[in-house]
């Protein structure tokens, strides 16, 4: 069997403060209380503020999660002084360039942008490596204001704004099909373009994209028309726009733990020899923008849920250096496992560790739900990572690996503060992949476990939860390679 390796990862944040109004919660609240919109606009962050937000710097790899423990909360009050929009693991992209990429990768020209707005983005776009000459051609000159207004007033297009300035619109994909209304088209186009951004960064060059043979989507979007709502395969659309000309693909659906499922299945495809290089991609969730904005406004905070997060992971064959995804120790939450926190933790953490012959303390770090607590706590949703690490610590106490008094130290040592935007599937473990890649190669870690849960019950088809875990190991050849 070929050993599947974690080759590289890119994580992106597309800062889209003017799309927050189209998040599910803001849209409903603004419809009920139109005066909220102005208040929300006043609480919007600038691109510079979003870049300097300490958790965002951790997300793109410019600092490590444990740095956050030394920064007084709320973190937006203590911006990073040496913040940069580009990091070793990814990039934070401004709204204008992002919307241009979205328009340039929209084959049906449903997302229209104003010519002057496009003009304002040209200089910025020309300095990026991920926006090509072909994209400039596809973007075109734009749609005049008079035509934008006509599309909005007579054809029900969704207006796009920069604060209160009309800068574009999104047309309905079909005049009668609710599955293709403008809101859903915008949701799906931004899921696609944010994933394209991550996969283009992962590829680096158009030539490198040719090496990828299979692309697996793990996002939460539903692509399709009224006869196959959720028909899917955004993965192939992303591959088409990310220079992966030799790839085919498909989507894996499993709520927030879909990235873990996709990584394990992708690793299995490589291990079987069927494909040499598999990319797992996930686009951002428009619906989740501003999900907890009321708590932020109530506490005098900026609206922090203003970014679309996206991920691209490359899984390939053993190169003697890259960390190995251990398919022998995949943790699974079976139908009969039960849905209590302890039952889930035992299935995802204990069972695979026992199979691998390791104790809980033998793993260097655990990555789980990494939601930023500054986003969730103001709305009363608690500190999700901390709650999950306490469950893990209680397992260690039960197994007598630590004492009850050692639980706080255990949480600090094996866990980490949450640093991911509340973008569902993206927040579930995978934001730590870049940090893990470094600690398992040039650092001193040997094993990192990624475990994630999925809220299947939200779809009203079952009351079950889901979950999947995997362990990434230091490649045993890497030390020899470093000596050379």
């Amino acid at each position, binding site marked *: 069997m070929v050993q599947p390796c974690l080759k590289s990862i890119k994580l992106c944040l597309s800062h889209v403060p003017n799309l927050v109004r189209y998040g599910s919660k803001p849209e409903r609240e603004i419809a009920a209380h139109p005066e909220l919109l102005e208040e929300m606009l006043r609480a919007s962050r600038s691109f510079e503020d979003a870049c300097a937000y300490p958790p965002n710097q951790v997300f793109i790899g410019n600092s490590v999660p444990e740095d956050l423990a030394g920064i007084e909360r709320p973190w937006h009050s203590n911006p990073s002084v040496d913040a940069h929009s580009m990091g070793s693991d990814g990039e934070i992209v401004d709204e204008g360039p992002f919307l241009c990429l979205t328009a340039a990768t929209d084959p049906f020209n449903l997302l229209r942008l104003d010519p002057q707005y496009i003009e304002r983005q040209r200089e910025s776009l020309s300095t990026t490596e991920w926006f090509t000459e072909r994209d400039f051609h596809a973007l075109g000159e734009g749609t005049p204001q008079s035509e934008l207004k006509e599309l909005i007033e007579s054809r029900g297009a969704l207006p796009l704004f920069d604060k209160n300035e009309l800068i574009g619109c999104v047309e309905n994909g079909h005049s009668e099909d609710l599955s293709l209304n403008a809101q859903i088209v915008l949701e799906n186009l931004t899921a696609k373009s944010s994933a394209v951004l991550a996969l283009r960064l992962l590829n680096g060059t158009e030539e490198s994209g040719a090496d990828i043979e299979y692309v697996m989507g793990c996002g939460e979007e539903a692509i399709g028309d009224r006869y196959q709502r959720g028909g899917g395969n955004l993965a192939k659309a992303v591959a088409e726009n990310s220079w992966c000309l030799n790839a085919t693909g498909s989507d894996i659906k499993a709520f927030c733990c879909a990235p873990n499922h996709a990584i394990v299945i992708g690793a299995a495809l490589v291990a079987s020899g069927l494909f040499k290089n598999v990319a797992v991609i996930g686009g951002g969730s428009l619906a989740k923008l501003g999900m907890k904005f009321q708590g932020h406004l109530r506490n005098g905070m900026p609206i922090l849920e203003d970014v679309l997060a996206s991920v691209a992971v490359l899984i390939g064959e053993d190169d003697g250096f890259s960390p190995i995804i251990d398919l022998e120790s995949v943790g699974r939450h079976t139908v009969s496992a039960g849905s*209590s*926190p302890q039952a889930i933790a035992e299935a995802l953490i204990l069972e695979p560790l026992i199979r691998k012959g390791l104790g809980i303390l033998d793993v260097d770090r655990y990555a789980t739900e990494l939601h930023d607590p500054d986003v969730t706590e103001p709305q009363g*949703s608690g500190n*999700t990572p901390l*709650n999950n690490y306490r469950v893990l610590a209680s397992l260690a106490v039960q197994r007598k690996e630590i004492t009850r008094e050692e639980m706080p130290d255990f949480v600090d040592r094996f866990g980490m503060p949450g640093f991911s935007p509340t973008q569902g599937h993206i927040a579930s473990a995978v934001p730590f992949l870049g940090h893990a890649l470094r600690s398992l190669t040039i650092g001193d870690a040997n094993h990192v476990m990624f475990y994630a849960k999925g809220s299947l019950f*939200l779809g009203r088809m079952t009351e079950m939860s889901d979950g999947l875990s995997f362990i990434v190991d230091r490649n045993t050849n890497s030390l020899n390679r470093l000596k050379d």
Partner: protein
Amino acid sequence: MTELNGKCIIAIGERDGIPGPAIAEIVRSAGAREVVSFTQCFV
């Protein structure tokens, strides 16, 4: 301590906490009647 016996209960569980059906099972054992139970995800 709240007396649950004979009461009607709405059980709202949480993904990272106790699931709704588990809460319902407990209140039933205490003599309460479950009107509805479900689990929510708050992230």
